[in-house]
């Protein structure tokens, strides 16, 4: 006795300007299940979502909701059919309150009606409670954290009586505890019979939340399987179309002298207290911790963005004064920040100019830039990092995410750094580029670079690090060697308990 599927897409085709994004994809969602949709970047996940939400009209194929064919789908129709999407970057109005944001999507009636604020606020409060939170309805959305904004989005979907909820990378900016509370909300939605399409790059997470998994590759559905019957390796193999031998290309490296040492570093402004650590040449030091534990702030302090008030930064055995990024660069420290679009690459500038931006001195004399030398230098790194581009004079904005991340990395390799700080180096990067970036990190370590890697992805921290520092509330909560580190130990420290 199988009930009618909640949503059924069959033989969906879609091409954009000759590029075939979807070639006959089929997908089915039952009521009360979490159905994960995975695949590398460009596999067609977002296009499929856009077809379902009506943002894009397919060239061929049919879409059925509860057995009824949906013709001429559009965003308004999809919404009236009970389809709601929650994107990675919440689409809320920052200058309006939580209650207003929720009301905008839900309240109907004349544009000129009088607003009943009391009802509006109590309704918002109730929906937020059902989404598992206690955010005050009168708070401005701009004062909410990313996870809180997601809660508001979920509350909105609940309020709209959505039967089909699409979550696109909902955990990308969440800490482990926030993920846990999100999963509780998802469990509640399932119980209410909602079908959830769940998109994520984090396979561990999918294993724990999904009932079924559909893998897309190059616009085709490769297969759908029961989540409990499939291993991580099998999934990766399905996604990339080849068996991946070792997920992390970790190799033994002979360690050199201490390259960077922090002694009792504190900064009130950055919120870090008494941090001491060291990293040796050739070593990869992983920094784990919840979001807000001061990992990024520590990196920013070392890099001179929020100079330390107390403590010492010792580079290659010499105490260093680092009060600006320029000073840090002068000391041979490179920093690839989180969120490369905002802080990393300069999108309107050519790849060559991006690569040389942090150390123009190298390709200039007396303030004068030698363009030939610049292109040559950039060309070398483009080749070394295998950036997919027709040339170094292309604007960085025209590249894909993985390739932009490589350009950001190239900028810091170009300064010949001694220490490289990588903040979430593979966030939002597809599986193929991810292992390529891990490979590059290993190559660099072998060349004697000291690498500090901040990451929220525990398997990455465990897989790539020689040693792991766990931070909690701006302090070092503990240090684990590669051998003794486990996900449980890291989490225990990150939550502020002694190991």
């Amino acid at each position, binding site marked *: 006795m199988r009930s009618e599927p909640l949503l059924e897409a069959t033989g969906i085709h879609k091409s954009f*300007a000759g*590029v075939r994004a979807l070639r006959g994809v089929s997908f089915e969602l039952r009521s009360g299940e979490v159905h994960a949709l995975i695949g590398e970047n460009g596999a067609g996940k977002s296009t499929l979502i856009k077809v379902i939400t009506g943002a894009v009209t397919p060239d061929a194929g049919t879409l059925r909701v509860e057995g009824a064919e949906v013709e001429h789908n559009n965003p308004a129709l999809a919404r009236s059919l009970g389809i709601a999407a929650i994107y990675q970057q919440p689409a809320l109005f920052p200058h309006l309150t939580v209650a207003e944001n929720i009301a905008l999507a839900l309240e109907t009636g004349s544009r000129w009606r009088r607003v009943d604020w009391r009802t509006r606020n109590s309704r918002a409060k109730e929906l937020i409670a059902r989404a598992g939170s206690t955010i005050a309805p009168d708070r401005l959305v701009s004062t909410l954290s990313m996870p809180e904004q997601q809660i508001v989005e979920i509350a909105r979907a609940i309020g709209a009586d959505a039967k089909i909820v699409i979550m696109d990378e909902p955990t990308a900016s969440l800490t482990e505890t926030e993920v846990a509370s999100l999963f509780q909300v998802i469990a509640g939605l399932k119980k209410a019979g909602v079908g959830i399409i769940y998109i994520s790059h984090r396979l561990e997470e999918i294993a724990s939340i999904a009932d079924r998994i559909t893998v897309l590759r190059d616009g085709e559905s490769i297969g759908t399987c029961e989540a409990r019957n499939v291993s991580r390796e099998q999934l990766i193999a399905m996604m990339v179309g080849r068996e991946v031998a070792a997920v992390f290309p970790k190799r033994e490296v002979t360690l050199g002298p201490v390259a960077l040492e922090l002694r009792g570093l504190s900064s009130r402004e950055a919120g870090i207290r008494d941090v001491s650590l060291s990293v040796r040449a050739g070593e990869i030091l992983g920094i784990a911790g919840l979001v807000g534990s001061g990992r990024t702030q520590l990196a920013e302090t070392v*890099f001179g*963005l929020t100079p330390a008030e107390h403590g010492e930064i010792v580079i290659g055995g010499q105490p260093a004064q680092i009060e*600006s*990024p*320029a000073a*840090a*660069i002068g000391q041979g420290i490179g*920093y690839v*920040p989180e969120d490369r679009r*905002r*802080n*990393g*690459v*300069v*999108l*309107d*500038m*050519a790849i060559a*100019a991006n690569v040389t*931006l*942090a*150390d*123009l*001195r190298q390709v*200039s004399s007396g*303030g*004068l*830039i030698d*363009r030939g030398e610049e292109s040559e230098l950039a060309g070398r790194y483009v080749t070394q990092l295998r950036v*997919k*581009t*027709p040339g170094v*004079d*292309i*604007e960085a*904005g*025209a*590249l*894909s995410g993985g390739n932009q991340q490589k350009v950001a990395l190239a*900028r810091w390799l170009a300064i010949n750094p001694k220490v490289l700080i990588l903040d979430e180096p593979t966030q939002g990067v597809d599986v193929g580029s991810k292992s390529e970036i891990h490979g590059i990190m290993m190559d660099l370590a072998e060349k004697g670079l000291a690498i500090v890697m901040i990451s929220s992805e525990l398997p990455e921290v465990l897989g790539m690090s020689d040693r792991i520092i766990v931070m909690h509330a701006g302090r070092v909560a503990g240090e684990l060697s590669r051998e003794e580190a486990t996900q449980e130990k890291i989490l225990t420290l990150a939550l502020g308990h002694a190991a």
Partner: protein
Amino acid sequence: MRRRYGRELSVAVSIALLALFLAFTVPGYFSAENLSDMFLANMPVLLIALGMNMVILTGQIDISVGSLFAICGILAGAFAKMGMPVLVAGLGAVVAGALMGAINGALVAWMRIPSIVVTLATMVALRDGLRWATQGAWVSGLPDGFQWLGLAQDSYPYLMAAAAILFTAGISWGLMNLRAGRAVYATGSNAEAARLAGIDANGVTFSVFVITGILTGIAAVLNSVRFNQIPANAGLGMEMKVIAAVVVGGTAITGGSGSTAGTVLGVILLGAIAPALTFLGVSAYWERALQGAIILAAIVIEVLRQRGEKRVALARVTVE
């Protein structure tokens, strides 16, 4: 900054078409006298536009240049009447321009006040401060050596031409080839990324306002020596002309992309149109309306062109 001259070319073609049209309809337009007049009248616009181009490249705007222009002109005259040699008086006015630019720049760069707000305030404050100080009276009775900088009237345009070429070429070359120039583009394109790359983005922002102040000072001095008295209401609407020239020349109003050559062509196009109207017997009242229309057209063309270009760039990468 990939070299693309598409925009510069389309402005140049517009100028050529306008010239061709005028050559047939109003030959008098190309008399040496008229050309020289037009050049001298637009020289201040050009100098200020060179600075404004840099301000806009960093993603800011300066609408106080008209008021700065008036104050610097009056100061040059006042200093000269105090008995200073003409060059010293001029230099004093330029320093005053730099100081006023520095006030703008400091408020924008370090106090983080939006530049449109800061310069709107200084525009009004400086303009009305000047009105109060001078009571609207023009500076006249200037010393003999002041007019034409003490040069003969016919050699003065040559000096101006030399100065125009020198400033334009120097700034253009610097923006393209100096590290400081690259810092201007990087700051305007993505200030946070520039800061993380070790560039002192606040310093860059401050500097472009100071440079604009200096260029405005020079423009005011060079303009005030053309007449035997200096008006207290000079430079009204100057900011409009200058910003228009920069935008028509293809500099993105959001910062990060544009060229000096484009700005020069923008000044020429807008500067050539106004007198052309007079020659064609069209009322001068149409000038501002036409200027506005040209700016709108330029922005619309720019947006359309950028869209097309992005598509081409993406297609190229995908093909690889």
